[in-house]
């Protein structure tokens, strides 16, 4: 009977799938990222409401934000997404040194972004308690910065684990997740940059 053979085929494929924990983990990580993005969406929604309804948006003596240095920062962060992709390809081809080189490059670019952010924060003439403008600015950039920091930390762990012999032979879920997370952090930054720096 055809239906029986169809079921038999399904059984075969299911048994393969049962051992495919990497696919399950990847699915789970996607679900998590979708959920995490809603926190950012909520903050963005809050920002838009505050910006459009607040009567005194800019604190006294504040002209707005300088866009030059943050633009460089943005370019560095966005390009690091391509660099981590190259690292992933190297790992796919089992070329560990290429993987390590490009992963290190990603880590450096991520750290540069954090450094640039810190320098920018230091030079600003408003603080966290300077009205809604200050509060939303530090909340958005700070919460995103925490995610960048987490991303760099994950990359560091992946980098160190590459020195454990055979670590990535069975599953490279760790690096897939790290890379996905990094792309996520990038996409969030693009929206954030548009909302805070471009739309002034």
């Amino acid at each position, binding site marked *: 009977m055809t239906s029986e053979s169809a*079921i038999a085929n*399904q*059984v075969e494929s*299911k048994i393969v*799938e*049962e051992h495919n924990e990497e*696919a*399950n*983990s990847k*699915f*789970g990580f996607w*679900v*998590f990222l*979708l*959920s*995490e*993005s*809603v*926190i950012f*969406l*909520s*903050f963005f929604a*809050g920002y838009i*409401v*505050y910006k459009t*309804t*607040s*009567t*005194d948006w800019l604190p006294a003596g504040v002209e707005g934000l300088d866009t030059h240095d943050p633009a460089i920062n943005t370019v560095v962060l966005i390009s690091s997404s391509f660099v981590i992709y190259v690292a992933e390809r190297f790992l796919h081809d089992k070329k560990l040194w290429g993987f390590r080189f490009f992963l290190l490059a990603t880590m450096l670019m991520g750290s540069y972004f954090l450094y640039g952010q810190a320098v920018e924060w230091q030079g600003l003439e408003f603080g*966290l*308690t300077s*009205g*809604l403008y*200050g*509060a*939303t600015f530090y*909340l958005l950039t700070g*919460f995103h910065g925490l995610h960048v920091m987490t991303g760099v930390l994950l990359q560091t762990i992946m980098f160190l684990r590459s020195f454990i012999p055979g670590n990535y032979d069975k599953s490279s879920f760790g690096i897939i997740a790290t890379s996905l997370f990094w792309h996520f952090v990038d996409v969030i930054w693009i929206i954030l940059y548009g909302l805070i720096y471009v739309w002034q």
Partner: protein
Amino acid sequence: MANIPVEALSGNRAQPYPGAPDNWKRFFSFSTDHKVIGIQYIVTSFVFFLVGGLFAMIIRGELITPEANLVDRTLYNAMFTMHGSVMLFLWSFPVLVGLANYLVPLMIGARDMAFPRLNAAAFWMVPVVGILMMSSFFVPGGPSQSGWWAYPPVSLQNPTGTLINGQVLWLLAVAISGVSSIMGAVNFVSTIFKLRAPGMTFFKMPVFVWTVLAAQIIQLFGLPALTAGAVMLLLDITTGTSFFRPESGGNPVLYQHFFWFYSHPAVYVLALPVFGVFSEILPVYARKPLFGYRVVAVSSLIITGLSAIVWVHHMYASGTPGWMRMLFMFTTMSISVPTGIKIFAWTATIFGGKLRLDTPMLFALAGVVNFVFAGITGIMLGSVPVDIHVNNTYFVVGHFHYVVYGTIVFGIYAAIYHWFPKMTGRMYYEGLGKVHFWLTWIGTTLNFLPMHPVGLMGMPRRVASYDPEFAFWNVLASLGGFLLGLSTLPFILNMVSSWIQGEQASHNPWRAIGLEWLIASPPPVENFEQLPIVVSEPYGYGKDEPLVSNLAELSESPE
């Protein structure tokens, strides 16, 4: 000597990991077995149910006389805040997660959840949440007094001026509970999508699995909004930002949006699995297939979708513009379509059936009846004119207690009785179960029905003293409240004594159809000897068709 490795192997099969305890001690270990975790969730949250119930009885004790003469007003505020918070974050959510944890892998024919260690970690956060919440009784100023929804500016007051205060501890507890829920939700969604047994298509899944999926999707898109609001509130309290401080330009209504964007759908996170429980139990005790199985299953996802666009009905009186009120009145009313589908399907399921009125069926039937009543008052509250009139009165309290107690707690009890033989391998005492049911039913009606007339008369909620004209209804409600407290005693007695020395249960005492009933009670670790191959839809009562094609291979000793 050649036998030794074989014995070691079978030893492993019975345990989640080598050397794991196999007696009661496993419930106090970091077990990754979904069945152990499920029971851990259920028992832990039941302890907090008793704690929250104690708070409720203190509230009802205060309200039995019109004067505020039982407890200090500060403590009274703390009581209603902690009653709501404990009942939601430490009882309703975790107990339903526990039931789902136990049942979903069995029902879809999986050996465990997709991420067993994540599962255990998510559970062990619940005691942490409980300890944090309870520890707020011992900080200066006592627990949070701003109600379970923690609206600013009340929640921002911080009269003691200390950094570690009741409100901050409350926010931390809710945040950790949120992390735990997200971990659980990722796990459930991945499990249901990825670990279904061969042949178990979406339209062969039991409705309980559908409703758990629908509920956990809500957690995924809703909880982050609450987290965002909670982070901003925490910053306002601790660092002096002004997100929600009206005096420095902030917008307290925005917090209400964040809060209700999650906390209204959260009601469906609780209600949906209970709808699933009703859909499982009614066919078993009516010996008929679930009427309109596919429509009932899909209506769960429709509820998920609609739940995201109704939250402003909690804010009709928060300066909401007219067009927004109209819009959300319309969306709120439309929720009654998918829920109505379920009600009619359940009614059609039991119509003409051969009803067997065991305790689970009694609780399920009473739960459906209470839900119809809660739905009618829900429609009333969903319409703007009525809501403006009864806003913040006991009518609202009566409505949502009919949902959370009359429907959800009844459904939870029904589920615990129904699956008790499966979980423990023993039968509960039917007589004690019936006593428990009638006490609960009378207590619920006596406690929550009087809240409706007294609310329509205008008694506001969250007050410690009130006009003497409301006294009659409040005395009735208080008596009902104490009766509900009493009703837990036969339940506890029943559960404890029958788990220890109850009659042995067969693998399928209810003659129910479902994958979980095909294997031993309690099921072994990893559940199935061989994964089931599902060949027919669930609820095939009276159809005489096999559910799986490899029945003999599912367990070591099929009955």
